[in-house]
C-alpha cells in the first residue's frame, strides 16, 4: 500500500512537473509527430493516398519510442543527476524501482497518447487503417518501449553531464530514425546496406511494429526479431543496472 501510494504519486508528479507545466515539452511530444507525418508524407511520396502514410504512421510512432528511451529516460536521468535530484531521492527510503518504474510508466502514458494522436491523424488525413491484432500491436509496442528505455538508461548511467547525454542521444536517435525504416524505407539502399541495417534493434522493432500494425501481419512471423529485441532489452537492463550511479 505504502509502495503503491509512493509509486502513483511519483508517476503523477512526473507528469505534472515534466509535462503539464512544460509547454515546450507538450508541444514536442504531441504536435511534432503529426507535423512530421504531414511533412514526410508530402516529401517522400507522390500524394496523400499513396502507401507512404501507411508506412509513416508506425514509423514515426517507432521513432518516438526510440527518442522516448534515449531522451525521455536517458537524458532525463543525466539531467536529474546533474541537478542533484538523484542524490536527494537516494537519501530517502524510496526503492529505486519506484523511481525508474514511475519514469517508465510516465513515458509509456505519453507514448500511448502520441500513438493515439498519430493513428487518428493518419486516419483522418490519409485514411490509414490499423488492420493488425490490437493485442499483438500492444505487445510489440511494449517490447520496443522496454528495449529502448533499457538502452536509453545506459546513456543516463554513463553520461557525466546533461550535455554529453544530449550529444549521445542526438548522435543515436537522428541517424537511427533515418536508417531504421522509420521515415525512409531502407529497401532503397543497396542490399548489403539494408541487410546490415537490419542488425539494428531499431530496425527490428520498427519493421515488426509496422508489419503487425498497418500491414496486418501476425506477430508470430517475427519470432527471430522478437527474440533479438528481448536480448537487447536484457542486455540494456543489465548494463544499466551495473553502471547506474546516483551521485
Amino acid at each position, binding site marked *: 500500500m*505504502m509502495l503503491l*501510494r*509512493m509509486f502513483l*504519486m*511519483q508517476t503523477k*508528479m512526473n507528469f*505534472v*512537473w*515534466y509535462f503539464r*507545466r*512544460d509547454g515546450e515539452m507538450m508541444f514536442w511530444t504531441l504536435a511534432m509527430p503529426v507535423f512530421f507525418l504531414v511533412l514526410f508524407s508530402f516529401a517522400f511520396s507522390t500524394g496523400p493516398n499513396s502507401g507512404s502514410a501507411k508506412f509513416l504512421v508506425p514509423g514515426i510512432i517507432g521513432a518516438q519510442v526510440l527518442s522516448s528511451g534515449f531522451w525521455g529516460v536517458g537524458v532525463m536521468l543525466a539531467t536529474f543527476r546533474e*541537478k*542533484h*535530484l538523484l*542524490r*536527494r*531521492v*537516494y*537519501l*530517502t*527510503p*524510496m526503492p529505486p524501482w519506484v523511481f525508474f518504474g514511475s519514469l517508465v510508466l510516465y513515458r509509456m502514458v505519453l507514448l500511448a497518447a502520441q500513438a493515439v494522436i498519430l493513428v487518428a491523424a493518419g486516419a483522418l488525413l490519409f485514411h490509414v487503417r490499423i488492420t493488425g491484432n490490437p493485442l499483438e500491436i500492444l505487445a510489440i509496442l511494449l517490447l520496443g518501449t522496454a528495449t529502448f528505455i533499457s538502452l536509453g538508461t545506459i546513456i543516463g548511467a554513463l553520461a557525466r553531464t546533461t550535455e554529453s547525454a544530449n550529444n549521445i542521444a542526438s548522435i543515436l536517435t537522428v541517424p537511427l530514425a533515418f536508417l531504421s525504416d522509420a521515415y525512409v524505407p531502407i529497401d532503397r539502399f543497396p542490399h548489403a546496406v539494408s541487410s546490415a541495417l537490419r542488425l539494428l534493434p531499431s530496425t527490428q522493432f520498427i519493421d515488426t511494429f509496422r508489419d503487425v500494425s498497418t500491414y496486418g501481419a501476425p506477430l508470430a512471423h517475427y519470432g527471430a526479431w522478437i527474440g533479438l529485441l528481448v536480448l537487447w532489452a536484457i542486455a540494456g537492463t543489465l548494463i544499466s543496472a551495473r553502471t547506474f550511479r*546516483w*551521485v
Partner: protein
Amino acid sequence: MRACKVQRARAVQPPKPECGIRGHTTVEQAIVVEQLVKRYGDFAAVDGISFSVARGTIFGLLGRNGAGKTTTLECCIGLGKPTSGSVRVLGLDPTRPRDLARMRPRIGVQLQATSLPEKANVREVLELYAAYYGIASRAAEMAERVGLGDKLDRQIAQMSGGEQQRLALALALQHDPDVLFLDEPTAGMDAFGRRILWTEVERLRDAGKSIVLTTHYIEEAERLSDRICVIQRGTIVAEAPPAELVARYGGDATVSIVAGGFVPGEALAALGTWTNAGAKWTLATRGEPGLALATVVTRANAMGAKITSLDMHRPTLEDAFIAVTGETIGEAE
C-alpha cells in the same frame, strides 16, 4: 588523529549500553566516525578524521570551503564511500546496503545544493516526500514551521535560494528523524531564514535529536554547537565545546585605556601583563575582562587621570579559529 570522546551534554539520556549495537535505539553515540579517509585520486579530501556525536547534541563541523566538511558528511549518509576508516550512524554502517536501508527512515538530510525539480511546488514536494517515508503528509504544518506557510503553491524556480533551503529543511524534518545532517544549512539565507533555522535546530536538539551541521559561519557554529570540530585540509585541528575552544585557543582578553597621567603601577600588575604604546596602556589578561576593566577605571579615577578612550576585547571563537588553523575563515559574504 585521535578519537575524540564526546561527553554527554544533556542529562536525559538512557544509561550507556555498549556503543555500536546495530540499529539499537539506546546506542549512546548517535554517530561514531573513526579514522575516516576519503581520497579522490591522489587528493585526500578527508585524511583521518575521528569524532563521535552524543545523542541529543549538536555537533558543528567548522572549516573553510574545501576543508573536507561536506565529504565527511557525505560519508556519514551513504553518498560517499570511505577510502578507509569506519562510520556508524545509530550503530549502522552506511556502506552496507542493508544498514543504509534501515538508516534512511531515521535520518534527515539538508544538502548544500538545491536538489528539487524546478516546476514542483512546495506542497507537492512535501506530499511526495511524505509518500517516500510512508507517513501522512504534513505539508501545511511543515511549510508553516519553516516560514513558507503562505507559499505552499509557489514553484521551486520562483523561490529564492534561502526559501529553497528552508524547504529543504522541512523535507529533512517531516518524517521526524532521529539524526539530522545539515550541510551549510544557512548558506545564502537572509537574517530571517537564519533565525528560523537556528530556532528550529535548537528546538530539535532539545527534543532529543542528534544533529550534525557543517558551516563556515563562526557565529552559527558558536551559537548552535554543543561541540565544534575545526577541520582544516581534511584533518581535525581542534575539537571541544565552543567556550572551551575559546578559552583554550582564543588567547588573552585585553583591556586598553588612554588616560592622561595613568600608569598601572603595582596595584594593577596582578591583573595580567601591561604594555604601552604612547599614551595607550593595554592589559592582556586570562581573567574576566569586565572585572579587570572596572578595576582599571577605578584606579584611573583614584589617580585623577582623565579617561579619553577605553576598550575591551574578549577572545572570540574567531580568534581561536585563527589560532588553531593559522588562517581566517576568510570568506566575504
